[in-house]
């Protein structure tokens, strides 16, 4: 793999982003658009996956709890912790890498191959900064909120599924999710989320920005964007967990 080449080019790409904005008002407008896009635009898929994810986790936990000595409220604890620590930040980021990463790469890739990026450059605008900075900032601001919503909906989904299936009582579940709660877990999850937001936006923008050719290459860039952001999310998930939780 020519990963060293990509690493170097990614580094140069990132260095070009650090500039004084041409006109702040323009960036603000872009930022508002992206906030809306990333936040409101991804609520539907995030809500759907979170509720089902919580439901599955709860039912599977009950299924695995065969020891009669363990109280059923443990189901709540396990569901809560796995949702907060891993499922919401990591799985939602993977979902968002698919949704937002591919759209960033294809949007910027299309602008690249249709010379819109050149048109920006010719006007003296730093095209990478203009196109990418608002996306990075928007994602790093809005993803934590999206993940918080996902946590809430995941735990809610677990409760609904557990009660509906009759495998855990409402009281046990609610007792469980309040038991020995560690607030730092949420902070840790948000640190992960912000890191993943940075990975998704910069990696996808990088792939879009270096598209050359036509529609076919735009499709390829968009696939690479999703693949590489997902791999990096998993690697950084492991690194951050190792670094912070041990």
């Amino acid at each position, binding site marked *: 793999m020519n990963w060293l080449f990509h690493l170097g080019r990614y580094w140069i790409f990132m260095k070009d982003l650090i500039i004084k904005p*041409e*006109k702040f008002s*323009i960036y603000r407008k872009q930022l508002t658009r992206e906030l809306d896009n990333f936040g409101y635009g991804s609520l539907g898929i995030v809500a759907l996956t979170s509720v089902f994810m919580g439901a599955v986790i709860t039912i599977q936990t009950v299924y695995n709890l065969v020891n009669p000595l363990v109280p059923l409220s443990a189901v709540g604890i396990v569901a809560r912790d796995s949702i907060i620590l891993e499922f919401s930040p990591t799985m939602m980021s993977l979902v968002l890498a698919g949704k937002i990463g591919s759209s960033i790469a294809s949007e910027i890739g*299309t*602008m690249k191959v*249709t*010379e*819109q990026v*050149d*048109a920006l*450059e*010719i*006007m*003296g*605008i730093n095209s990478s900064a203009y196109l990418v900075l608002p996306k990075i900032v928007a994602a790093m601001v809005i993803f934590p909120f999206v993940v918080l919503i996902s946590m809430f909906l995941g735990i809610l989904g677990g409760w609904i599924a557990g009660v509906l299936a009759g495998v855990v009582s409402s009281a046990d579940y609610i007792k469980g999710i309040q038991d020995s709660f560690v607030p730092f877990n949420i902070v840790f999850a948000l640190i992960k989320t912000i890191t993943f937001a940075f990975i998704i936006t910069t990696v996808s923008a990088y792939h879009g920005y270096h598209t050359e050719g036509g529609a076919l290459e735009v499709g390829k860039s968009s696939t690479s964007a999703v693949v590489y952001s997902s791999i990096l999310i998993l690697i950084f998930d492991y690194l951050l967990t190792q670094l912070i939780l041990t």
Partner: protein
Amino acid sequence: MIEIKDIAKSFNGRQILKGVSSTFETGHVNLVIGGSGSGKTVLMKCMVGLVEIDTGEIKYDDKIFSNLDRKERKPFRQEIGMVFQGGALFDSLNVEKNVMFPLNMFTSMSFEEKRDRVNFCLKHVNLVNVNHLTPSELSGGMKKRVAIARAIAPNPKYLFCDEPNSGLDPQTSIVIDNLIKDITEEFNITTIVNTHDMNSVLEIGDKILFVHKWEKWWEGTIEDILKTDNKELNDFIFASKLAKNIKKTGLI
């Protein structure tokens, strides 16, 4: 005036420009002609700094443009307008916002002033009542015209047009050609136009540079072109039967 000296460029070891030199006068329409794939677009992109040249020198009036870095080129950027071969309109913006874009970025004009300027430029290219259409709702020729309006909106000193009338009907082509000539003379712009349209050559070419086999093959005025015995140039310009007959009968 723009002066290029011996500029060379290759991509992945394939030489596309082999040392091209020329001067392009202010207040004149300078045409670069040549077959498809002859390197016209690459030459133009080199001149505006979108593609870095391997060797050679590019001078804008008395400043050496090719030696400057990105930051130092910035003041020039605001004096350069460019019409891309494919239009390169911003898909996410409507016509009005496309033309207004460079004004938003670099001027402190009020919204009304900017809108007036936009309408003025759109009217110049014969487009009215299309301000709120998006690029996907325009025909190919309309896109070209919007692109021209966007390029001239900030009053550039240097105007680059990459095949501004390819894909237009002959009548609109001539309107666009004359528009380019008029604004060039009216605002004393240094204009460079890539084309392979013989009509344009005869209609507006003050000076013509013929690129062939990746080098400057021929250079001269419109009078010269009718008298030249350069075989490749004649084959290129008078390719059609109609043109051959016209040349034979000496109608032009």
